[in-house]
């Protein structure tokens, strides 16, 4: 099988690889036996590159993020940051979660300063840094609010500010805007693009929204299900900054959307077959059925 990363040269801007996965698989113990969450995924992300992982639920895209974050360990294969294997979570790889995960007992400002406190930064330095970050995400006015007093979009901006606090080399974003309304989502996509071009972070952005992926990414990595795996990569060679309603974004998104639709439909059809054949028909236990065809 051809290594997808070698078939598609990395357009990393700063040069060098920031994150690489080499033949990474993850299996977990489930009640019905071992379940394969991710199969043989290889991916290289260049320093300063913005890569979107795109796929339906169960395609292992969040798993890849967790592996890179060090929150999960692969069953086989290696995850590298630069040349060093990832051995656990660290402030050089920050994560923005879907539910923002701001600490409810701390003000917005204290939330942003929390990782700086862990790094034993002095009070003055923390204050200066949190102000800078909150101004960058346009939340300075709200710095003394508690998370429950902020809207969903503001919470995600706050989470981005917190993630950037320790100046990580890599920013991992796990469907950060999935729970937001579409206007807020488009505004925040613009923010991500702006922050990315200002800070030159390596960003891995997980989404199931095709337009979001196409609008943001240098490269879209398409993922499939049963088991979760990388199907295909697509370089998005559109000029930046990209507008949310750019027709080129829309037409590229349509093409990719059709591929995903056929993948989802295939899975749905298999599930429907299971339901109709019932016991004695094609059992769900045959692992070969879960391979799926390559697209």
């Amino acid at each position, binding site marked *: 099988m051809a290594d997808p990363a070698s078939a598609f040269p990395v357009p990393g801007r700063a040069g060098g690889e920031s994150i690489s996965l080499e033949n990474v698989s993850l299996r977990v113990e489930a009640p019905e036996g071992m379940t394969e969450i991710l199969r043989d995924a290889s991916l290289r992300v260049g320093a300063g590159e913005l890569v979107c992982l795109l796929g339906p639920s169960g395609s292992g895209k969040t798993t890849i993020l967790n592996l890179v*974050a060090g929150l999960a360990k692969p069953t086989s294969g290696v995850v590298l940051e630069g040349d060093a294997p990832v051995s656990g979570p660290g402030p050089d790889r920050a994560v923005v979660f879907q*539910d923002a*995960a701001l600490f*409810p007992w701390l003000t917005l400002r204290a939330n942003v300063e929390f990782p700086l406190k862990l790094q034993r930064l002095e009070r003055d330095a923390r204050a200066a840094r949190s102000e800078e970050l909150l101004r960058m995400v346009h939340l300075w006015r709200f710095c003394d609010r508690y998370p*429950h007093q902020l809207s969903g979009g503001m919470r995600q901006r706050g989470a981005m500010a917190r993630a950037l606090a320790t100046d990580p080399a890599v920013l991992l974003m796990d469907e950060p805007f999935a729970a937001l309304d579409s206007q807020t989502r488009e505004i925040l996509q613009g923010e991500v693009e702006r922050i990315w071009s200002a800070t030159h972070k390596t960003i891995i952005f997980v989404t199931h929204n095709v337009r979001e992926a196409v609008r943001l990414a240098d490269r879209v990595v398409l993922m499939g299900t049963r088991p979760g795996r990388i199907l295909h990569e697509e370089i998005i060679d559109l000029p930046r900054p990209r507008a949310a309603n750019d027709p080129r974004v829309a037409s590229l998104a349509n093409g990719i959307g059709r591929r995903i639709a056929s993948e989802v439909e295939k899975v749905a059809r298999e599930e429907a077959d299971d339901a109709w054949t019932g016991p004695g028909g094609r059992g769900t236990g045959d692992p070969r059925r879960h391979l799926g065809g390559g697209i």
Partner: protein
Amino acid sequence: MVLAILVVIWAAASKIADTPLAPGPVAVARSIAAGVRDGTIVRAFLTSAARLAVGYSLALVTGVPLGIGLARSRAVKQSLGPIVLGLSSVPSICWLPLAILWFGLSEWAIQLVVILGAALPVAVATENSVKHVPPSIERAARTMGARGARLMLTVTLPAALPGILGGAKIGWTFALRSLMAGELLFVSGGLGQLLETGRDLGDTALVLAVVVVIVALGRVSEALLFSRADRAIARRWGVESV
């Protein structure tokens, strides 16, 4: 207002009943005043309050770590979990005879009852609320480099605080109840014993006076200990999640 009406009804009822077994509010107030003047109620109040303070503090100090252990350690859960569940269903006063056999008629005997009464609800509440801290909160903290005891103290426990506080309140009322039962059953000062004295003397007014003082102790301590914490949590978490 409601309280005033109830007191009036109480006064009227005792007037109609006209028996020393049902003293009116005036008689009870007089009894409290007398007890304060000669120091019996004050001493009993201070004795009970001091016991509560010691026993309840020890209950928190043992209950919270026990709850953390139950939530996070398989070994602790498997070894102590059934014991904690079993003990929770026994009213703690049932341990008094055993405690007296162990420690004699001492402070330790009564403290054991108070601690057992209060620590278990605190432990159970801590276990539940630590288990229900949203995983993303702890994962976020781990990606920032928080681990081990630091993660527990600066992230998990604060996140679990609303639930732990609920358990601490239940623990407080359990401590108060256990203490009163313990003091009623053996003579060693305190409000419970004063109740018993009132019964011995057939002094209904004194018995009711002590009950009023116990109610006051419960209300005042709760206001001092918990209402501020409640307000702080409501302000931070938002009212809907408390």
